[in-house]
């Protein structure tokens, strides 16, 4: 569908979201990313990542390859837990396994900053989500259903904007295509406001006048699973500027 609408846009460029149809915006983005205003926040996240737990272990001990080039494998379906585990979910599993309290998924100062750094360790890795069991397929289908179901008084589905109207302008904003949407989180909106993917989901739902789910909820985890699978093969790139 996107190929028909945008025959000249390369597959890997879909990580740029709405900027695929706005060269000016892409130029601005590239200028800002040359000296990102949020580097201080990335450094704070690095400090969180490297600070040992009380037992002396670190986050790097929980992840394969010390957490490098792994984020593209998340979310995955955990057969034992019977649920989808996002990268943020794996961070909290790591904390709990090491005797620490889990972070609040909606807290920018902890989970937000931590993953703003940790995900940069996977820059360049291609999204590599597997849906390879009946349990995994069920969660994928639940995420897909959520994406295509209408929500809120305004009666919008995620797909209304990001499939049916991708590339069109809504008020002053160009709507991004779904392809590539899961590859670049967290984003710093306006250069300083950290938003994880689940925070973005929450805001979208508020905008269509639905009661949003909580970041880290099962619904959002399944939604991320579906969206990430749809971005398979695209390179990850975190953390980035968005308008």
């Amino acid at each position, binding site marked *: *569908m996107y190929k028909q609408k945008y025959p000249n846009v390369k597959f890997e460029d879909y990580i740029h979201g709405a900027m695929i149809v706005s060269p000016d915006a892409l130029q601005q983005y590239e200028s800002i990313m040359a000296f990102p205003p949020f580097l201080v926040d990335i450094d704070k996240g690095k400090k969180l990542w490297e600070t040992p737990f009380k037992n002396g272990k670190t986050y790097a001990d929980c992840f394969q390859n010390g957490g490098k080039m792994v984020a593209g494998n998340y979310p995955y379906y955990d057969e034992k837990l019977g649920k989808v585990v996002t990268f943020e979910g794996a961070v909290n599993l790591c904390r709990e396994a090491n005797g620490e309290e889990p972070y609040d998924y909606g807290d920018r100062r902890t989970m937000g900053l931590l993953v703003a750094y940790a995900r940069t360790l996977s820059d360049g890795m291609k999204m590599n989500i597997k849906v390879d069991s009946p349990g995994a397929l069920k969660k994928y289908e639940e995420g897909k*259903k959520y994406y*295509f*179901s*209408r*929500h*809120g*008084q305004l*009666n919008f*589905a995620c*797909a*209304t904007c990001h*499939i*049916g109207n991708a590339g069109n302008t809504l008020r002053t904003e160009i709507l991004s295509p779904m392809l590539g949407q899961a590859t670049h989180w967290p984003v710093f909106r306006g250069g300083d406001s950290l938003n994880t993917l689940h925070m973005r989901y929450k805001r979208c739902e*508020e905008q269509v*006048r*639905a*009661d949003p*789910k909580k970041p880290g909820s099962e*619904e959002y985890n399944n939604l991320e699973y579906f969206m990430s699978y749809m971005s398979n093969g695209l390179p990850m790139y975190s953390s980035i500027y968005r308008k």
Partner: protein
Amino acid sequence: MKRVTLFAAMVAALILAGCATALEEPPAKPVAQGGLSKQAMDALAQAEADVKDAKKSGNSWSTATDALKAAEDAARKGDSATVLKNAKKASEQANLSQRQKKYPTLSF
């Protein structure tokens, strides 16, 4: 001596009473206060049930939640007309959100 003992006992009683008062939680304001019409109270109870059902279904609207909150706030003030108006809106929005859940998913 008797006077001193009596005075000390009074001071102790006052201090104890003060501590007891300080430890008491402020009583939560009931949602519905006296003075609300039966119609308003019934509408509020219905709205609370409708919004609860909508939330349980996982497809509630913020318009319903906000209207219910406005109805509850009005109930605390004993304002029947505002309770009625907002409770009806909350029920209507909650019921619409339930109907939306039965819509077919989008296809392209």
